[in-house]
């Protein structure tokens, strides 16, 4: 039933694999408000998949459905070949899905390193008593986790703020720390909620490079929401376009760019 077969090859020669996650006829309602209406699309192994749309299109709701934070009233979420039952967010995290938030959700009083280390929590086995005694397994785990954290810190070039409390950092760096925390859990699917929001051109360029590098280096599948069209078109392999909770386009950036419905949604036409 699930298409695990052939993938495709991108313009720059990357091999994209089979379907990792499939959304089938998802409808999400908040009381009388329909946030998402009968949307279906898939995310394939190793690709950068973008969800775009004007304000209020339902992008964040969609991401929250993927991350298991919302349970849709109708439709099915298939993940790696099996239908996903309603889940708690931590169970989703244990399945290898990590995310960042549109409004940064870091522990402001903690250092960058400590924040990044919290990303390893789902991978820790030692219980609280072992941790208190520290010797043995807890110590070994901590060393392993610290190494993972340091590799990510190195990768995202935030060594200079390793010991700085997050509250003292500028916005652009906080975004990067959030990405680090998501990455350190070694996700197989990474969800980014507006990773470029509120950034200047230089910060956007840096962030784009990091996203591409993450995908390239770790082979991480990435789904991202963004409303900066330029960034999305450069970054992503395939794009889902939403407007008023409906899917109005799906395809490569070029296909989407030439789609009349998408142009209308962005440039604005009278809705009847």
């Amino acid at each position: 039933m699930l298409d695990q077969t052939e993938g495709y090859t991108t313009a720059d020669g990357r091999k994209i694999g089979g379907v990792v996650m499939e959304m089938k006829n998802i409808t999400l309602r908040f009381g009388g408000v329909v946030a998402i209406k009968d949307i279906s699309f898939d995310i394939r192994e190793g690709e950068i998949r973008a969800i775009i749309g004007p304000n209020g299109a339902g992008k964040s709701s969609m991401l929250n459905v993927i991350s298991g934070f919302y349970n849709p009233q109708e439709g099915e979420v298939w993940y790696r070949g099996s239908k996903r039952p309603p889940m708690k967010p931590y169970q989703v995290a244990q399945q290898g899905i990590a995310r960042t938030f549109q409004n940064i959700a870091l522990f402001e009083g903690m250092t960058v390193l400590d924040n990044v280390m919290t990303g390893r929590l789902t991978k820790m086995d030692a219980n609280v008593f072992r941790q208190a005694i520290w010797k043995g397994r807890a110590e070994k785990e901590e060393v392993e986790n610290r190494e993972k954290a340091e590799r990510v810190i190195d990768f995202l070039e935030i060594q200079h703020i390793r010991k700085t409390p997050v509250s003292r950092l500028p916005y652009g760096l906080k975004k990067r720390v959030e990405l680090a925390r998501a990455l350190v859990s070694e996700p197989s699917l990474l969800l980014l909620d507006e990773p470029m929001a509120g950034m200047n051109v230089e910060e956007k360029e840096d962030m784009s490079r990091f996203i591409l590098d993450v995908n390239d280096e770790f082979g991480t599948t990435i789904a991202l929401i963004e409303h900066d069209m330029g960034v999305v078109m450069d970054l992503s392999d395939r794009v889902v376009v939403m407007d008023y909770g409906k899917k109005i386009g799906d395809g490569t950036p070029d296909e989407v760019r030439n789609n009349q419905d998408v142009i209308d949604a962005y440039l604005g036409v009278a809705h009847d």
Partner: protein
Amino acid sequence: MSIPALLERNAKQFGDAPAYREKEFGIWQTWTWAEAEKEIEALALGLINLGVKEGDFVAIIGRNRPYLYWSMVAAQSVGAVPVPLYQDAVAEEMAYVLGHCGARFVIVGDQEQVDKVIEIQDQLHQFEHMIYLDPRGLRKYDHSHLHQFSHVQDQGRAARDEFLPELKKRREKLGYDDQCVMLYTSGTTGKPKGVVLSNRNVIETAKSSSEFDRLRREDDILAYLPMAWVGDFIFSVGQAYWTGFCVNCPESEGTMMTDLREIGPTYYFAPPRVFETQLTNVMIRMEDAGRFKKWLFDTFMAHARKVGPSILDGKPVSGMDRFKYWLGNIFVYGPLKNTLGFSRVRVGYTAGEAIGPEIFDFYRSLGINLKQLYGQTEATVFITAQPDGEVRSDTVGVPSPNVELKIAENGEVFYRSPGVFVEYYKNPESTADTKDPEGWVATGDAGFIEPDTGHLRIIDRAKDVGQMADGSLFAPKYVENKLKFFPNILEAVLFGNGRDECVAFINIDLTAVGNWAERNNIAYSSYQELAGHPQVMATIQSHVEEVNRSVAEDEMLSGCQVHRFVVLHKELDADDGELTRTRKVRRRIIEEKYADIIAALYDGSKEVSTRTEVTYEDGRKGYISATLEIRDAAVSSVPAKMAAE
């Protein structure tokens, strides 16, 4: 003798001693001399495997990392000549150097450098292979001419039996007068020149300078200055291999200060700018400190200024003063030195530019043995240096061991030493212009030797020294340095050669002035706005007038007082060609580029509108427009002193 021979000696005599450290993944990683020798050998074998021939030039571009230092020595081991380049140079600048030396091989740090070389490779006819350290982002690149550093080493190790005899043969052939390294001068005028240094130049200089400062195997240095700069080559390769001390590389550019504190080098070098910035940061933080702490700091620092330098020089100081200094060391100096990373500094040097006397005295009064030296690439650094106990802020010291000095009639300083360079590569005319048949080299600097102490004092670049319209001496650097000693002034450029009076461009220091603005609730949205703020202008004016008063006291140079000045709307920048990569002012370029502002400074107008091209870090260009206010500064009457007498 050669650098590879010294490596062999070190690995044999003290193979377990640390040779290199680098902080990676938050932990200091160490390589002993024996390990370093193995790494270098593997790379050298890999280079032979790739086809590096004797006499080839191997360009090296990247930040200070052990791997790149190994690359230099590995290149030497196979009979090639390493050519380190400034990593922040833009692609065209690299194209010139790489084309000039005809490098067949380039070893680089990361994707940024790979991209730059790929961008210009069509202009480089001899270029064949590139080796990179950090594979990040390079997976998709065409690897027909691109190799990962560790793979080259692996291939070298695999082919050890095959190539080892060849490597040994090449290494044994290295002679004392063979080329050791080629370093391109930053070039305040014209194109960079490739200075060829022999093993003799480097090793003799390293030997005598190490003895001069009694450097030891246990010493630690932090390698953070550009690898293309001769100083870094002498400290981190020459002296390190001669004495066997440990070279520590920071984790990244941004962590330099933290790494400095963690390593606590015993032998430290920094240009005046670094000391200035550190002092500014200390002062800014003290402004924010509580009243008691501030009182403690001020009281003990005043005492340190009084007796600190004397204690450091071993001069007699009363018991009471010593006791107070000892107390101060517990409460202020010790913790402060620790914060700055200077707790263990035994020998510290500053050079390249004049250092402000207050800044110099500040560090010395804390008990840090900071000294000055004077040198240049052509001399393999050392021309003069200050011996312990004879340290002053206004001289550059006595001739280094085995260096002879003479002053020409026009005031230009000449020297002769075992460190004198072999030649400028492919440029016999310039070589002949600079070095005469007897081996005397022109420094291009004007100066004089103090009769009673034998110390050399430098006035200015010889070619910048000129005459005012009335015939009096024009020495721009002298005045600019006085201006730059104010923390609020980052850069100053003086004009007036052949004119009646002098005028100046001034750059504010954004850290110092920005902090002042914050403290005084002055809102600003850009550098430009802050630079033009009336209160900032008034402060700068008072600084200029203070400098005028001090310049007026010097009879010879009293004509150089600043009559009018302007605070520039942008920082002078190496990317715009206004400064060299070592941050020296390029007068001619600035004069051309800002001709409209200079004209306005001389025609008496009150303000000037201008539009300036700027280059962003990624090479794109843009324009900024501004209307600049021109201010008059009060000038002290010239013969003030004589009239009083």
